[in-house]
């Protein structure tokens, strides 16, 4: 009996050790014959390549480690924007799919069936090479909202120029903390006295009012630098000032959002449908209004069903953002596993670091979500 338990484990172990041993030995040998050394010292060397779009200070004189950071931040930026937009769109479409209105229901399911059945890479290519290429050149671009230009070279929007931004930012955080404590107080009060405070009204007043106050007394000021067109040569124009969002980022965000939102919408729909009809009817019968039913009874329960699969979608979105490499958006894969590897030839180290980074992001998000999930799970007695 004991033998039966040990043998398969021994075999598995042997298999793993053999494979890893085989690979390491070959790698060692190959690197020796080619004169490559294993090590991460290259990270400190000068990268000497430029990156088109960077959130932090970067140029060719910075190190590979800095280039890695630029790529990582660009990946996180796309993932962050994508997750927020996809959640909003997905929630709206998911609720729309359950609408009693025939047209809305059909439009929502058409959208879902359409976008989820086309490969993401194709969608990214479509937005980047076909849709955004149809935009006007800078000199012909119409002025949008009196401030921005949507051109083939990207979106030029007014850039905010702050004075005393720190004060504003700190006030914003204070406002959020206040709102947090206020809503806890309101909830407690409701549980004890049964009285409902106008939470939304008061918290939005705090959220808008407090930071606004800093403009009056805190010396905070906000002005905008607007993009202004300038002729560079006979036929080429560019914009001065303002804030440029590259078309790669727009195409990637659009495609990721539209694609992932379909999956989130299905999760939302399944979550809401998973709540028994009795819950809705019971809530209505004690006199709650339809919006209260949704907010107080359906959603808190539906969220438990919605959150785990939606976390998976967030992870997928983050991983899918690596497709950026295909349209030359400088994300982690393009900058590090692409350019940096071509230059250094350190295939094992660089692919290893890239994979480890994604693995860390994935595991971190899933741990966070597991923790959240546990917190909101039904406490059964």
């Amino acid at each position, binding site marked *: 009996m004991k033998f039966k338990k040990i043998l398969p484990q021994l075999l598995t172990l042997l298999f793993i050790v053999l494979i890893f041993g085989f690979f390491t030995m070959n790698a060692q040998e190959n690197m020796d014959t080619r004169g490559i050394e294993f090590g991460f010292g290259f990270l400190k060397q000068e990268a000497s390549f430029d990156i088109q779009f960077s959130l932090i200070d970067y140029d060719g004189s910075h190190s590979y480690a800095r280039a890695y950071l630029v790529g990582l931040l660009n990946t996180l930026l796309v993932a962050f924007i994508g997750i927020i937009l996809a959640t909003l769109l997905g929630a709206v479409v998911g609720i729309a799919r359950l*609408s009693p209105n025939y047209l809305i229901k059909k439009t929502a399911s058409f959208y879902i069936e359409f976008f989820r059945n086309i490969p993401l890479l194709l969608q990214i290519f479509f937005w980047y090479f076909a849709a955004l290429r149809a935009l006007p050149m800078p000199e012909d671009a119409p002025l949008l909202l009196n401030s921005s230009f949507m051109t083939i070279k990207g979106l030029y929007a007014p850039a905010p120029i702050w004075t005393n931004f720190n004060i504003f930012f700190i006030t914003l955080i204070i406002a959020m903390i206040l709102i947090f404590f206020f809503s806890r107080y309101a909830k407690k009060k409701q549980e004890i006295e049964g009285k409902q405070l106008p939470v939304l009204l008061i918290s939005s007043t705090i959220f808008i009012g407090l930071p606004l106050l800093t403009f009056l007394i805190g010396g905070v000021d906000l002005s905008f630098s607007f993009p202004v067109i300038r002729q560079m040569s006979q036929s080429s124009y560019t914009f001065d000032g303002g804030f440029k969002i590259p078309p790669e980022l727009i195409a990637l965000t659009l495609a990721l959002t539209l694609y992932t939102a379909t999956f989130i919408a299905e999760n939302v729909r399944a979550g809401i449908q998973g709540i028994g009809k009795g819950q809705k009817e019971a809530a209505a019968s004690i006199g709650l209004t339809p919006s209260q039913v949704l907010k107080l009874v359906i959603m808190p329960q539906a969220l438990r069903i919605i959150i785990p699969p939606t976390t998976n979608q967030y992870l997928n979105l983050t991983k899918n953002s690596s497709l950026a490499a295909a349209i030359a958006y400088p994300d982690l894969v393009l900058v590090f596993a692409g350019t940096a590897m071509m230059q250094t030839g350190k295939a094992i180290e660089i692919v290893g670091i890239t994979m480890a980074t994604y693995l860390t992001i994935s595991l971190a998000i899933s741990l966070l979500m597991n923790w959240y999930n546990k917190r909101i799970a039904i406490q059964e007695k």
Partner: protein
Amino acid sequence: MIKVNLLKPDNKNLSLFLSLGSLFFVLGIFDFYSNNFLNTNITSFLPRIINFFTPLIFSVIGLHFFRIEFSGVKILDNINKNINTSNFNAVLSVIIILLIIFALPPLLNWLIFDANIAGDTKEACTGGGACWVYIKVWFNRFMYGMYPNAEQWRINVTFIAVLAFMAAGFFVPTRLRNYLSFYYTILLPIISFILIYYIISGGSFGLEWVETGAWGGLSLTFIVSFFSLIFCFPLGMMLALGRRSNLPVVKYSSISFIEFWRGVPLITVLFMSAVMFPMFLPDGTYVDKLIRVVVAITLFEAAYTAEVIRGGLQALPRGQYDAAKSLGMGYWKMHIFVILPQALKLVIPGIANTFLALIKDTPLIFVVGLLEVVGMLNLAKANPKWLGFSMEGYVFAGTIFWIICYSMSKYSQNLELKYKTDR
């Protein structure tokens, strides 16, 4: 004089409200139509901000007059019930109707009415619409990649043969049914590999050798997804069982394997197979690019399949395990005859979703330089003779993928209903 309450339409003044409603509704639609397609704005005397919304306002007022409770007219009641239950609903319905009016005619014009398909040069495209000539000229490339034109029948023959072998499973006599899973998981892959190796690759039997670098297009999509599908299923099943095993070494190695592949993007896995994997092999060994890609995708998707199957295993009630054990079945007997048949039925939709994801992931193989449909499109797009037709290409490829994926998902929904067992 009859009292008419315009705010609350009733069926006493049915005809009045109906005519008022249609008047406003038609006015709204006409306003929108003339704004967008006739370049005349019939409400231009109003301030710009109101004038922009007039189509919406008119149509919603029209729908408001239509909203008569218990009108007794069947069509009207149906309309009201479905798209016009409240003012808010009416606004949404009108917005969607207006959007359809806005988008559909230009779309149809581009796709069909102004499109060109006759001829075979770029100059044949004279209309303002799509240039399907481009697709027609490049069709063979999109389907077969760089495979020599004269040899393309080989791909067709192989595909038909493989399909025939796949379909053969449905016609076996009942007494052989038990061997079906053996046939599908072991025999079929071997047969198809032999077929593909000898017919598509060639090199013997008087067939010209065609290297895998020349394979491409939709046929490559099928080859890659077919083999990855076939291999990732058994591997995923083993991993799922491993993860639920109570032998610690097996359990934790399965867990780390699964979590590793699930945590990294496919594109880095393909990078790994392209640049890192050759370093891990003895010097001088060469593994074909296509094989490396299939192995990479298989390992990647197997991890996802494993998680789906684990879901099915967990959903089975404990009683099934206990009952099987009490009959004296061992681990393998219990799983093969009792647990897996039930668990796999439960996870059909999940497996289908994984397979769909796999098919949608195949375009990524461009990373290692293999060009399937999307890769070929990008190649064709850059051809100096055919610049500027990227839109047509993407619409074409999108349609192909959409048809494949949509029909597969519908089929899996059917299977789900068919195998639904009540517990």
